[in-house]
């Protein structure tokens, strides 16, 4: 335990630990200060922070671009939802069942790609292809109601049932907050172990990594499998938060793209980038939406246009993402990751 704590906080200045603690405290206290609408926005922000963090393991650490992460969310969502609606099995057990499913799917994609030397853009296309297979497959799978969608029973709950994930937005908020903080901790530990160093080496230069003795196939497989497994919780959460699953929606490529915007804007390969990116993007997009609503405009698709503008600005002005320059500004730049 001491070793883990030392690894977790080693190299962090008092100031950065303080900022992190203040940030966490603000998030913990948030439900007392915000209305239901804002709380829902915060849940969505944390959801994207979490999925962005999971995606970042593959792209930010190991340098493998996945544009089909919706497949892991979707598969896990369906596994948990089917177990719940058909067999009455709760979401946490469902999560335990979803992890191996998502991980195995990641392993198949990874094996096919890395075994046969599919890299870069072609690897990204392969990940899209798999997500699309899943979307079309589930659209015709009667066992999960095909394109008609799968619904979880919704009722008014007198009290929060954490075990069955039925309850108020506040409960969902704290569940997602815990998951996001846990993902942050896991990612920091991953980066500071042997595997983390090997991932970064592969990301930076795969040929040089091999010449340094790293079995790149194995470590890239670890990256895909771990990223998929971490993502799978987002799927379970998605199913129980939204209570409806349409293949056309959950497996859609826009879901995969939304997932990566946070880390891209926050800073790929950084630990805090995915969290910051989710706040910047979803926070600003919702503000723009409310502002337009207040002025009486109704423009569907405005959010997507806004995403596009944000992405352009970041690519042009802050190619490292928002977090690295902000970290330097806050004087915690020593924490390079």
């Amino acid at each position: 335990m001491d070793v883990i704590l030392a690894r977790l906080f080693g190299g962090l200045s008092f100031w950065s630990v303080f900022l992190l603690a203040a940030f966490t405290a603000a998030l913990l206290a948030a439900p007392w200060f915000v209305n239901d609408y804002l709380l829902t926005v915060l849940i969505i922000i944390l959801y994207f922070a979490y999925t962005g963090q999971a995606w970042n393991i593959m792209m930010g650490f190991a340098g493998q671009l996945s544009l089909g992460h919706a497949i892991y969310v979707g598969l896990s969502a369906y596994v948990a939802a089917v177990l719940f609606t058909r067999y009455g099995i709760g979401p946490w057990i469902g999560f335990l069942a979803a992890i191996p499913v998502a991980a195995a799917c990641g392993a198949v994609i990874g094996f096919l790609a890395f075994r046969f030397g599919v890299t870069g853009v072609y690897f990204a296309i392969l990940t899209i292809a798999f997500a699309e297979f899943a979307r079309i497959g589930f659209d015709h799978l009667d066992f999960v109601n095909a394109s008609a969608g799968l619904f979880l029973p919704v009722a008014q709950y007198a009290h929060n049932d954490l075990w069955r994930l039925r309850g108020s937005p506040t409960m969902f908020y704290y569940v997602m907050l815990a998951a996001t903080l846990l993902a942050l901790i896991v990612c920091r530990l991953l980066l500071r172990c042997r595997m983390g160093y090997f991932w970064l080496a592969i990301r930076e230069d795969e040929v040089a990594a091999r010449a340094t003795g790293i079995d790149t196939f194995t470590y890239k497989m670890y990256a895909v499998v771990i990223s998929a497994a971490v993502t799978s919780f987002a799927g379970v959460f998605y199913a129980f938060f939204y209570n409806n699953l349409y293949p056309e929606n959950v497996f859609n490529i826009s879901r995969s793209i939304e997932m990566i915007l946070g880390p891209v804007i926050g800073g790929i390969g950084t630990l805090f980038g995915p969290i910051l990116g989710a706040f910047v993007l979803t926070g600003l997009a919702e503000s723009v939406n409310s502002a337009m609503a207040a002025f009486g405009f109704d423009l569907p698709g405005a959010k997507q246009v806004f995403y596009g503008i944000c992405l352009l600005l970041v690519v042009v002005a802050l190619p490292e993402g928002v977090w690295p320059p902000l970290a330097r500004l806050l004087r915690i730049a020593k924490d390079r990751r």
Partner: protein
Amino acid sequence: MTGLLSVGRVSKRFRGLVAVDNVSFDVPEGTIFAVIGPNGAGKTTLFNLIAGGMALDQGRIIFDREPIHGFSADEVCRRGIARTFQLVRPFPALSVEDNVMVGALLHRGNIDVARERAQALLRRFDLFDRRHRPASALTLPDRKRLEVVRALATEPKLLLLDEVVAGLRPTEVDRLVTILKDLNRETGLSILMIEHVMRAVMALASRVLVLDHGTVIAEGTPDTIVHNPAVIQSYLGAEAV
């Protein structure tokens, strides 16, 4: 006699071009062995055949009494042959120390022990002060040394150096030569180097192999090599003597 590394009748063809033709030599344990030759002589091909990742058409490569031809580059490194690249490839965004950490973690899982080892090597190669800088911010001589350090961190029995002093100023050449020579003397590290800079070859190597058009035209001590007529004709040029 079989050395630490034994290359036996190795050939490699690229379609019609015979890049390496029936080359044999031994690198005895604890020696510094140089391969020289004009551009296109097949030096880098030979190097890649040993370092892995390139299949040979004929012959065998024995390292530490085991055949290693056909092994992947990472497997070769884990067996104890570490290499540098002619066009340096450090991990650009990683700090100098983290670059070396990657190598130091190859045979050990403990981060703290690996860091100690990395820092000891960085001190030896005068890179300790720059250990927190990203590798991309280093000058070329520093990056070349960093590559050597990263390779050494994997604890090789044999170090392959691909034109490691090319592009350095004479004072920097001498500095690197001194470090490598000390390392060889103190730890018994064997080195196989491809080199154009005769200043480094003469100072370091105890044996030299000369390649031309893929074939061995001479092998011997540096002194005999520089007076060999065939070598002078094909590579050194008359004015070098």
